[in-house]
């Protein structure tokens, strides 16, 4: 109840929902993070053309992943949820809104993948290819503040894990984060703000999900993107709530069909179902790793993103000392 006062303040900015006719048939309330909105427009249309999707209506709500999760936690009605990272579903599991067995499917609850990529200026004028290139003198890196943007935590873990893959020790990998953040002149509040900042001309590299880089290109932004050899596989997760009608479950099942996964692929997301291809090439980075390789979200959240004691809190403090003069 009380969480609502603060939770809604954060959720308010991304609310927007639209309901289509009820017609007595079942309806599904979809709550998701911001970027898949375009994909869902196509997916819902395609679902409507299947026997299971006949006469199912949808109400849709999109916003920052953490805000959306908190809104549902605070009571926003939801049947189907899709978030950028697993802790946003775990929050709902902890409060009994989503069954603890939500990830008991072949794909462990992961609906679509992506990877952390480097978005660069058209033609890559600064020749950015590796994580080491990001910390060269004169290179400016844009990434959202990992405390205000839950989704940006993937970027940090990509940077950290890449160092381990390059053979560095955990201590050296943390040291890299200190170095990296000396090159970050702007820490936007969200991924979409960061994209605005980058397309407005600030910075040489934007750390971003591959699907958002593709979407920016589709939208006419004059950018290229580079997938580093070592990067993290971003796993976005979906589930139905405990009170969801059968239609929501059928929708979730539908999203795992090759037809639906192809729509995801055509929107720049990496399909989880093997053998599905779309109009984009999704080369697997030679040294790809997952969040589980780094100990899982539970551990990472405490070690890195505790707002006062986490590694990132200390990193922020160190750059503050050097820039506040």
């Amino acid at each position, binding site marked *: 109840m009380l969480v609502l006062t603060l939770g809604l303040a954060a959720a308010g900015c991304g609310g927007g929902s639209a309901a289509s006719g009820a017609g007595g048939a079942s309806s599904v309330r979809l709550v998701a993070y911001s970027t898949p909105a375009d994909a869902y427009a196509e997916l819902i249309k395609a679902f409507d053309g299947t026997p299971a999707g006949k006469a199912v209506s949808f109400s849709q709500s999109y916003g920052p992943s953490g805000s959306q999760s908190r809104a549902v936690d605070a009571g926003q009605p939801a049947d189907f949820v899709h978030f950028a990272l697993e802790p946003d579903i775990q929050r709902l599991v902890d409060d009994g809104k989503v069954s603890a067995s939500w990830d008991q499917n072949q794909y462990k609850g992961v609906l679509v993948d992506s990877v952390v990529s480097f978005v660069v200026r058209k033609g890559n004028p600064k020749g950015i290819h590796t994580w080491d290139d990001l910390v060269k003198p004169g290179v400016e890196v844009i990434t959202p*503040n990992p405390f205000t943007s839950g989704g940006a935590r993937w970027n940090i873990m990509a940077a950290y894990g890449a160092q381990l893959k390059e053979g560095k020790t955990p201590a050296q990998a943390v040291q890299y984060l200190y170095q990296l953040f000396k090159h970050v002149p702007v*820490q936007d509040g969200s991924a979409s703000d960061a994209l605005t900042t980058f397309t407005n*001309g*600030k910075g040489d590299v934007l750390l971003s999900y591959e699907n958002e880089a593709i979407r920016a290109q589709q939208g006419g932004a004059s950018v290229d993107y580079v997938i580093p050899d070592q990067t993290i596989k971003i796993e976005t997760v979906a589930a139905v709530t405990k009170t969801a009608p059968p239609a929501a479950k059928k929708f979730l099942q539908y999203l795992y069909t090759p037809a639906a996964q192809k729509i995801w692929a055509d929107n720049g997301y990496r399909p989880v179902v093997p053998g599905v291809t779309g109009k984009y090439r999704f080369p697997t980075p030679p040294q790809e790793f997952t969040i589980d390789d780094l100990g899982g979200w539970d551990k990472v959240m405490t070690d890195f993103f505790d*707002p006062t004691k986490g590694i990132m809190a200390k990193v*922020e*403090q160190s750059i503050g000392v050097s820039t*506040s003069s």
Partner: protein
Amino acid sequence: MSQPAASAPRVRSVNPAAALPGLAAGTAVLYLSLVVLLPLAALVWQAQAGGWSGFLHAVRAPDVQAALKLSISVALIVVVVNSVFGTILAWVLVRDDFPGKSAVNAVVDLPFALPTIVVGVILLLLYGPSSPIGIDVAYTRKGIVLALMFETLPFVVRSVQPVLLELDREMEQAAASLGAAPLTVFRRIVLPNLLPAILSGGALAFAKALGEYGSVVLISGNVPFSTQVVPVLIKGRIESDDQAGAAAISLVLLILALVILLGISLLQRWGTRHDR
């Protein structure tokens, strides 16, 4: 207030609120409670969830201290600048006549109407790295001040304007006829009359500047210890599932705003008592 018109029974009460004295007050209290007091009480409740030590721990964190310093200092700068220019603007709108005056008058309120995030986007386009007019203040404290100046301009203008309209010009004319220079007239006659309105407009601007999020988040760059204002930091605490911390820091902002608003109204009461 209204004398019962026992001797003149044909005169009916023209003040329904006086006829139902309890209703207006009751409605006011209920409305204020539901809309303002209850949410504020909920905030205080959340802020004390971690106990006194939890509150202190949340508020004393180094990033919070840095953000508070930044937010307070930019808010003060904005208040001073907007008090001066808001008063000038109000003066021009009341005392001068020029074509398009009513249009300008309407424009003053637009900062209230625009969604703050739109303000942020527009300011970034205009005064950011790809500025068409060659001014780039984005991702600096200057950018924050600029955004807050835009957002809080109406407060001083709108509180000074009505006072200026009501101001008795005979006093000024008398002073001028006695040989006072225009600047002296302004300083000795006009300004003392406007001061309470400037102060209360400034106090509102200060409170708004402390809490502003949408227009600042894009242009400030949000680098902790450098350009991160308190509301953005609070968003970070919420996003890190530290609700109690977020509420504790919000409470500090609330207390600051309350102290300023109360202080101004005390100052005004003191001023009026010494005037007469």
